[in-house]
C-alpha cells in the first residue's frame, strides 16, 4: 500500500491544494531556459575561442548549417556568406572526391568518421593546409556532418625545416669528424685553463726571485688588481708591512722555500687600496725536469671574514674573562666530567687563600673546600635540576676557617668545551651581623621589660615612704626618729637607682636647641684633658668663630667623646691630639686629629659598620653611634688617613 498521506498534516495538504504551498506555482520554463541559454552561450564561446574552424553541414544538401567564429576569421568570410556556401566550395581534396560525400562511405552507406588532410580556400583564394576531422551527428532527426579543420601550416613548415636541417647535418658530419681530434687536444688544455680561472681560490706563482709570474682572476679580484697588474711585482708588495719580522719570515718561506713540503700559512696580505686581508696560503714548490726548484705556487684563500669572526669570539671571551675576574663573588670554572679546576677568579683565590696554581688541575673534591656530605648534596641537586641556584652551603678556606656561601652552578660553553661555572656568594659577614642584630633585639626587649617592672616597684615604695614620713612626725620619741630617717633615706636611694636604670632603658628622645659647638666643647674639655693626661697625651684645641646650630647637647658630647677616646686609644703615649672647629665652604666642621697609625683601606671601608671593631674589648658600636648621631644632625663624617695622622671630620650642613 502506498502511504504518502497518512502522515501528512491535513492543513498543510489543504494549503498546497489551494495553491499556497512553497511549490504551488504554475509551470515556468523560464529558469530552465535561462540556464540552458547560458550553458549554450558558454559552449558557443568555447567553440568560438578555439583555433580550429568548425563547420556544421546539412548532409542532404551539403550546405553549411553553422560555423564558428574561427571559421569566419580564418577564411575571411562573414558568417552570413558562409551559410550560403557548401563545404565543397571551400575545401579542396587531393583527388576528385568531394568532402560532402566522405561523411558516408559510398559502398556501405555507413557513417564515416576519420581524418583527412586537405586545402581550405580563403576568400582571396589562398589555400590553408588543414587536417579535417569528420563526424556525423543527429539533431531532431536531421543528420548533420561536423567538420573540424585544424590549420597545419606551422606544422608543415616545421617538418620541412627539420628535413632540411637533417640533410645539412649529414654533410657536416664528415668535416666535424676531422675537427674533432684537434678540438680534443685544445679542450684538455682549455679545461685546465678554465679550472684555474674559475676557481674561487686565488692562484699565485712566484719565480725563484720571489717575483709574481702568474695570478688567476680570483687572485686579482681578491686584491683588487686588474689582469696582469701584479705580474713582475715582488711578493713584498702584497704582504702587509705592518709586521716586518713576519714579512721577512714569509718571504723566506716563499722565496727560499725553507720547507719544501706543501704547507699552509696565514698571511696578512694587502690589497691595492691598502686594506689588510687575511689569507690562507697553501704553498708548494715548482721544480724543473731535473728536480731543481724554479719557484713556487700557492693557492690563496681569503679568510678575512673568518678572522673577523675569530676576533669577535676572542673579544667575547675577553669580556667574560674580565667580568669573571672582577666579580666580587667567588667564581671558578671546572671541567664537566671530573670537576677539575680550569680557572678561578681573584676573589676565589683571596677568600679561600688558595693561589690559582694550587687549584688549577685538581678536582673540586680534592681542593677540599666542601664537606663531603655537602658536596654529595650539591652534586645530586645539580644532576636532578641541571643547574644550582643560591644553595646555602658552608665552605672552607685553605686554613680551615668555615665560611658561608650561596652556591650557584651552571653549564657554560668555553672555547667549544662544556664547563661548569661555579659561583659562591660569600655571606659569612652578613650572617654574623644578623646574629648580632638578633642579640641586640633580645637586650632591648629585656630592657623594656625591666622598665615595666621598675615602674611597678616604685609605686608601692612611694606608699611606704609616705606612711614612714607620717609615722615619723607623730612619733615624738627621738630614739626612733633616726630609724625613720634611715628607712626613708634607703628608700630614696633605691628609687634613684631605679630611676637611673629606667633612664638607661628608655628610648632616647632628642631635644635640639640653638647652641654653639664651641660651648659644648668647652664644657667637656676638662674631662677630655683629664683622660688625655692619664694616657700621657697632649691635647691641642683650636676654636674658631662658628655660628650657633640646632644641637642636642648630650649627643654632641657623645660624638666628641667617642672620637676623642678613639683617637687616644689609637695613639701611643707622648702623642698629640688636636681638636679644632672652623668654617669651611659655609659648612661648620669639627675635626679630631690623632697621630695613630694609618687605617688600612679594607678596615676604612668597614668603619661605622655596627659591631665592626679592631679592639679586643670593643663593642663595635662607638663609631656606629657617631655616624647615626651625625645623621640626625644633618652632618657627615669624613676620614682622612695617612701614615702620620688620621683625622675625623664632622661636617655640619647648617
Amino acid at each position: 500500500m502506498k502511504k504518502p498521506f497518512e502522515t501528512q498534516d491535513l492543513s498543510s495538504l489543504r494549503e498546497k491544494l489551494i495553491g499556497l504551498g512553497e511549490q504551488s506555482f504554475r509551470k515556468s520554463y523560464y529558469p530552465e531556459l535561462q540556464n540552458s541559454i547560458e550553458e549554450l552561450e558558454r559552449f558557443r564561446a568555447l567553440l568560438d575561442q578555439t583555433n580550429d574552424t568548425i563547420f556544421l553541414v546539412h548532409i542532404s544538401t551539403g550546405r553549411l548549417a553553422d560555423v564558428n567564429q574561427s571559421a569566419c576569421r580564418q577564411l575571411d568570410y562573414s558568417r552570413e556568406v558562409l551559410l550560403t556556401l557548401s563545404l565543397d566550395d571551400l575545401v579542396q581534396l587531393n583527388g576528385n572526391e568531394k568532402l560532402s560525400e566522405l561523411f558516408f562511405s559510398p559502398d556501405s552507406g555507413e557513417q564515416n568518421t576519420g581524418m583527412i588532410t586537405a586545402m581550405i580556400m580563403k576568400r582571396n583564394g589562398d589555400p590553408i593546409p588543414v587536417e579535417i576531422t569528420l563526424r556525423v551527428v543527429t539533431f531532431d532527426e536531421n543528420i548533420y556532418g561536423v567538420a573540424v579543420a585544424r590549420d597545419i601550416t606551422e606544422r608543415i613548415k616545421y617538418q620541412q625545416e627539420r628535413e632540411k636541417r637533417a640533410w645539412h647535418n649529414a654533410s657536416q658530419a664528415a668535416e666535424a669528424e676531422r675537427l674533432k681530434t684537434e678540438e680534443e687536444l685544445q679542450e684538455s688544455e682549455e679545461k685546465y685553463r678554465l679550472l684555474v680561472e674559475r676557481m674561487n681560490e686565488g692562484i699565485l706563482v712566484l719565480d725563484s726571485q720571489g717575483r709574481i709570474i702568474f695570478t688567476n682572476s680570483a687572485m686579482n679580484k681578491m686584491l683588487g688588481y686588474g689582469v696582469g697588474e701584479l705580474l713582475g711585482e715582488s711578493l713584498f708588495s702584497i704582504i702587509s708591512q705592518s709586521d716586518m719580522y713576519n714579512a721577512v719570515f714569509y718571504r723566506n718561506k716563499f722565496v727560499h722555500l725553507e720547507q719544501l713540503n706543501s704547507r699552509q700559512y696565514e698571511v696578512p696580505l694587502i690589497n691595492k687600496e691598502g686594506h689588510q686581508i687575511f689569507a690562507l696560503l697553501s704553498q708548494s714548490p715548482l721544480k724543473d725536469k731535473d728536480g731543481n726548484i724554479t719557484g713556487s705556487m700557492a693557492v690563496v684563500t681569503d679568510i678575512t671574514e673568518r678572522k673577523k669572526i675569530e676576533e669577535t669570539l676572542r673579544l667575547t671571551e675577553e669580556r667574560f674573562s674580565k667580568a669573571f675576574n672582577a666579580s666580587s663573588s667567588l667564581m671558578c670554572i671546572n671541567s664537566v666530567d671530573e670537576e677539575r679546576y680550569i680557572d678561578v677568579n681573584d676573589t676565589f683565590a683571596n677568600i679561600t687563600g688558595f693561589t690559582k696554581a694550587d687549584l688549577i688541575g685538581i678536582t673540586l673534591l680534592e681542593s677540599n673546600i666542601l664537606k663531603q656530605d655537602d658536596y654529595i648534596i650539591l652534586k645530586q641537586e645539580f644532576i636532578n635540576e641541571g643547574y644550582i641556584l643560591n644553595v646555602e652551603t658552608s665552605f672552607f678556606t685553605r686554613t680551615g676557617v668555615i665560611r658561608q656561601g650561596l652556591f650557584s652552578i651552571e653549564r657554560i660553553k668555553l672555547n667549544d668545551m662544556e664547563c661548569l661555572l661555579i659561583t659562591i656568594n660569600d655571606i659569612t659577614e652578613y650572617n654574623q651581623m644578623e646574629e648580632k642584630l638578633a642579640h641586640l633585639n633580645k637586650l632591648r626587649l629585656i630592657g623594656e621589660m625591666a622598665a615595666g617592672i621598675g615602674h611597678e616597684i616604685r609605686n608601692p615604695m612611694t606608699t611606704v615612704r609616705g606612711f614612714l614620713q607620717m609615722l615619723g612626725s607623730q612619733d615624738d620619741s627621738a630614739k626612733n626618729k633616726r630609724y625613720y630617717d634611715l628607712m626613708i633615706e634607703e628608700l630614696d636611694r633605691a628609687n634613684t637607682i631605679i630611676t637611673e636604670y629606667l633612664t638607661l632603658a628608655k628610648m632616647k628622645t632628642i631635644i635640639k636647641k640653638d647652641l654653639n659647638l664651641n660651648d659644648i666643647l668647652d664644657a667637656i674639655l676638662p674631662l677630655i684633658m683629664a683622660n688625655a693626661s692619664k694616657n700621657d697625651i697632649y691635647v691641642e684645641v683650636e676654636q674658631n668663630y662658628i655660628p650657633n646650630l640646632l644641637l642636642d647637647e648630650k649627643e654632641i658630647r657623645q660624638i666628641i667623646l667617642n672620637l676623642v677616646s678613639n683617637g687616644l686609644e689609637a695613639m701611643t703615649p707622648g702623642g698629640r691630639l688636636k681638636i679644632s672647629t672652623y668654617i669651611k665652604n659655609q659648612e661648620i666642621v669639627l675635626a679630631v686629629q690623632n697621630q695613630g697609625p694609618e687605617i688600612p683601606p679594607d678596615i676604612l671601608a668597614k668603619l661605622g659598620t655596627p659591631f665592626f671593631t679592631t679592639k679586643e674589648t670593643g663593642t663595635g658600636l662607638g663609631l656606629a653611634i657617631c655616624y647615626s648621631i651625625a645623621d640626625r644632625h644633618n652632618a657627615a663624617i669624613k676620614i682622612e688617613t695617612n701614615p702620620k695622622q688620621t683625622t675625623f671630620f664632622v661636617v655640619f650642613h647648617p
Partner: protein
Amino acid sequence: MYMQYQSELRKYVIPELIFGSGALHLAGRYARNFGARKVLVVTDSGVVRAGWTEQVTKSLESAEIPYTVFSAVSPNPRSEEVMEGTEVYLSQHCNVIVAVGGGSPMDCAKGIGIVSSNSKHILNFEGVDRVFAPIPPLICIPTTGGTSADVSQFAIIRDVQNRVKVVIGSKAVVPDVALVDPDTLTTATPYLMACTALDALTHAIEAFVSNACSPLTDVHALEAIRIISSNLVPAITDPDNHAVHNQIMLGSLEAGMAFSNAILGAVHSMAHSLGGFLDLPHGECISILLNHVIAFNYPSSVERYERIGQAIGLDLRGMSSKQIKNAILSRLSILRNAVGMERTLGQHGINPSDIPKLARNAIKDPCMATNPQRANQRDVEVIYEEAF
C-alpha cells in the same frame, strides 16, 4: 467553518480558455505557437471512432505540424499506459502534447507530460505539489461535459497492481490551453452524458461546500449547479439540441474552474477509492455516493446547502433545515433516476468486506482535506455501507 477561512489568501489558476463551437480547430494554430516540432496526440479509441481525433489531427496537418497519435488509453487510465505514452513521446521526439477526449485521455496526457520532463515513474508523483520540472505544452480538448480535466490541476491515474487511484495534484499540471468545443457532445452516448454531467454537478456541489471555497469559485460553482441541474435531463432526452450541449459544456467548464481552485470533498475521495478498486466508471461511482455524503456533510454547511437547494430550483421558503436537506436529497435522487442511474454499490458487485479497505484508501485521498466535515475511518465506512 467558512468564517474560519474567510481571511485566508486565495489563488485562482485556470488555463487559457477558448469556448465555443469550432474551438477544437484551433489545435494546429496553438501547437504552432508553442513551437511544436512534433505533437503527441493522446486520445482513446472511442474518441477516435467518434471522429474527433481526426478533426484535431487535420488541424495539425493544416498547420504543417507532424504528429503521432497515442490512443491506447482505457477508461480510468493506468500507470502502465502513461509510461507507454511517455515512451512514444520521447522516441518520436515530440515537444507538445494535445489531449482529445474525456477525463481518461486528458489525465493520461498529463501523466505523459510529467514523466517526460521529470524522468521518473508516474507513481512517484502521487500527492500534491510533487511535480517540479515543468511539463511540455499541453493543449486539452474535452469531448465530454464533465471531467473538467481540461482546466483542473489534477491527474487521476489508476495503479492496477494496488487497485487504487493515485491523485496527482499540482499547479504545474494545469493545461496551457483548453479548447472547449460543445460540438463534441453530439456524439456522446446517453450513459456517458449522464455519467459526466453528474460528475460535473458533483464537482460544483463539492467545490461550493469545500472548506477552501472562496467568492472567486462560489460564483462559478453556483452557476454550474444551476446550469447542469436544469439541463441534465434535456441533454439525455434531446441529444441533438445544440443549445443544451452548449449549456452542459459551459456548466462543466464552470464547475471545473470552481473545483480546480476550491478542490473537492468526500464524494470524490470515496469515488477514487472505488474506481481504483473496481475500475467502475467514475461518474457511476459519483452518482451512487453523492446523496450519502451530502447527508453526512449537511450539518456542517446548512446555509451553503440551502443555497445549493435554491440553485437546483427548489423553493425552500418556510422549510426547516431538516426539510431542506430532505428536499435537496430527493431532488438529486430524482435527477439521478431520470438519467438512468439507479444502481447501488451492492449491485456493482462490491463485497461488504471490501468496505474497510475502501474507506482506508478514501481517507488518504487529498480531496478529503477540503471536505467540510472531518471524516474518520468509521464515518467513511458508514457512508459506504449506506450506499451499499
